[in-house]
């Protein structure tokens, strides 16, 4: 049981890093990234490729961060002149492009995937995941409580308003993407070493939407909400397995019921608590009273 708890915590921590990264993009800045799995996958594949080449893990981590940042700039390029709705389409496409490339390029392992050295000790994996989550949290916290973060919120609410304040929205979006994608790539590097294997089937659109579910469930714009959301998604997923084992029905019926329950919880959440489990706090600042 303890091993299982350690495993669940590790996964929650990794998914939280992904969620925090998405929160900087969507929760703070309003960038709709439907390709969140792309930097995650880039990080994981970089770790795998470095390991295949016999390089130590820091080389893979560095490669993952550099590639993710470079790709984020590349993806941003066509989005520069478009409104944020198009951002969703471009990132969705970019994520799929990466997956299909990995599937069809033999040097990237193809459908067979690549093996990565695993953490020998699950405790070490948990420690690393928690450390990365803490680092991601710190970065997110610093951003959201800085003047920079406040301007991102202005950008989220009204891009034109931000521009009238003499700020260039594109340069802010670029900075946000670089930070957020590097964060997600770091999560990917870690994930590859936890699971011990990467393949295109691990980086589908579904994974992106799991992160989105965690973010929306927890409360976009609130860092604590994201972590709570990631924990809720993972715990719902595993706890429903235990509940299912007490019900005597055919396994395929139970499996579908489990997913239906997951959907029902989401629908009820959106009906009765659309702001998320831990909603974003409204900050009131009175400049004159200070």
């Amino acid at each position: 049981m303890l091993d299982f708890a350690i495993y669940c915590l590790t996964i929650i921590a990794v998914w939280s890093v992904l969620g925090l990264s998405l929160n900087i993009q969507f929760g703070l800045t309003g960038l709709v990234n439907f390709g969140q799995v792309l930097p995650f996958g880039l990080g994981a594949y970089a770790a795998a490729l470095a390991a295949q080449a016999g390089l130590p893990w820091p080389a893979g981590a560095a490669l993952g961060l550099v590639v993710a940042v470079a790709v984020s700039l590349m993806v941003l390029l066509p989005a520069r002149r478009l409104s944020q709705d198009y951002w969703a389409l471009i990132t969705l496409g970019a994520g799929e492009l990466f997956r299909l490339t990995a599937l069809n390029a033999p040097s990237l392992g193809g459908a067979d995937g690549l093996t990565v050295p695993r953490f020998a000790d699950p405790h070490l994996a948990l420690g690393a995941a928690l450390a990365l989550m803490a680092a991601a949290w710190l970065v997110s916290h610093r951003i959201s409580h800085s003047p920079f973060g406040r301007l991102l919120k202005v950008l989220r609410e009204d891009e034109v308003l931000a521009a009238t304040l003499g700020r260039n929205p594109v340069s802010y979006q670029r900075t946000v993407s670089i930070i957020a994608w590097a964060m997600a790539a770091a999560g990917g590097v870690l994930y590859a070493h936890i699971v011990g294997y990467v393949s295109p089937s691990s980086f589908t659109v579904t994974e992106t939407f799991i992160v989105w579910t965690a973010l929306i469930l927890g409360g976009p714009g609130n860092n604590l909400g994201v972590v709570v959301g990631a924990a809720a998604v993972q715990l719902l997923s595993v706890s429903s397995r235990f509940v299912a084992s007490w019900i005597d029905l055919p396994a395929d019926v139970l499996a579908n019921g489990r997913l239906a329950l997951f959907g029902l919880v989401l629908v009820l959440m959106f009906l009765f608590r659309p702001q998320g489990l831990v909603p974003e706090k409204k900050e009131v600042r009175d400049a004159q009273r200070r």
Partner: protein
Amino acid sequence: MKNFLSLAFCSALALAAVQGPARAADPIQIGVIANLTGSAVKTSVQMTRGVELAADAINAAGGIDGRPVKLIVEDSENRAQEALNAANKLYNVDKVPAAIMFGGSGLMIPVAELAKEKGRVLVNTSSSSPKLGNYPGTLFSILPLDDIVGKELGLLIADSGAKTAAIVVPNSTFGLGVAEAAAAAFESKGGKIVKKVAFTEGQPDYRADIQPVVPVKPDVIITAGYGDDSRAMLKAARELGITAKWYAAYPSILELENKAFVEGKLFGVDNGGYAQPAGKAVADKYGAKFNGTADLMAHVYYGYDALMVIAAAIKKAGSAEPAAIAKALPEVVSSYDGATGKIVWDARGQRVSPPIDVIEYKGGDFVTTATRN
């Protein structure tokens, strides 16, 4: 929401608390991981039913040394992350010594990594990636490797007198593995591959992918696949007016889109055990439990054999410890006559030289016309 989470937590803890040390009449728990939701559901459900039939048979005969078998079936949603969640629950909480799994290599290998770390047994009934050979003593395959079935398919095509062949397969480990082995065998007998199409799975229409096959007019088309993809593939070929004969690995797992289109034109090689008495007996049991055999697929036999060899290994070892099972498994399979025929493993626990049936689709059914091996 908060209440639900705490309830879930408490329930998980309570479940852990009720597990005590094993007694003689305690059930032996065996895990099953399959894509019960997501894609490739039908095949997974079939495999799971096969395991259930085996469990019924074992328990009806008094269990293994008096201990009944209890299955714990988990859904992988056809996602690597959920497969890992399922496997972690099975190995860490339910403490199963062995799990039987249906899923592609993308799901199977992460689970094999975990099983290896935990020192447990994983029995593969679906994946045929060569990478699975990297887990000797942990992972054992009931499904034969693709290159063996593919080679038989290539030789069959050469024997049919065909001179040219086109390849139309899904871009998966299974599709490419079959295609490469079949092409190599066909070419070694003087055949010529005139076109190679590997389509990306999950699309609604494959006409654009298959179009390049039309102008080269091959004698035969080498294929492999299952589920909705195979249905869409055959539909595209019919609409494009392709008249070549089809040669498939495991033709019975293809979803036929139009029966008249493939009547007398679909051939292939399949595992030859099913037609033997042991396989027939399993089919009868399936018909009795699941209202007829109309939807029966080959995966039932692989699931059945998977649990049967685990049970035989536990009996021989006199213990349900994973290390004992892993040690006894290769010893028991050599004398096991299963629903999929005689099982021969190489040193890595991968199945080699299975009995091969030559299949033809005629009169609306798959008919065995010859046997090899």
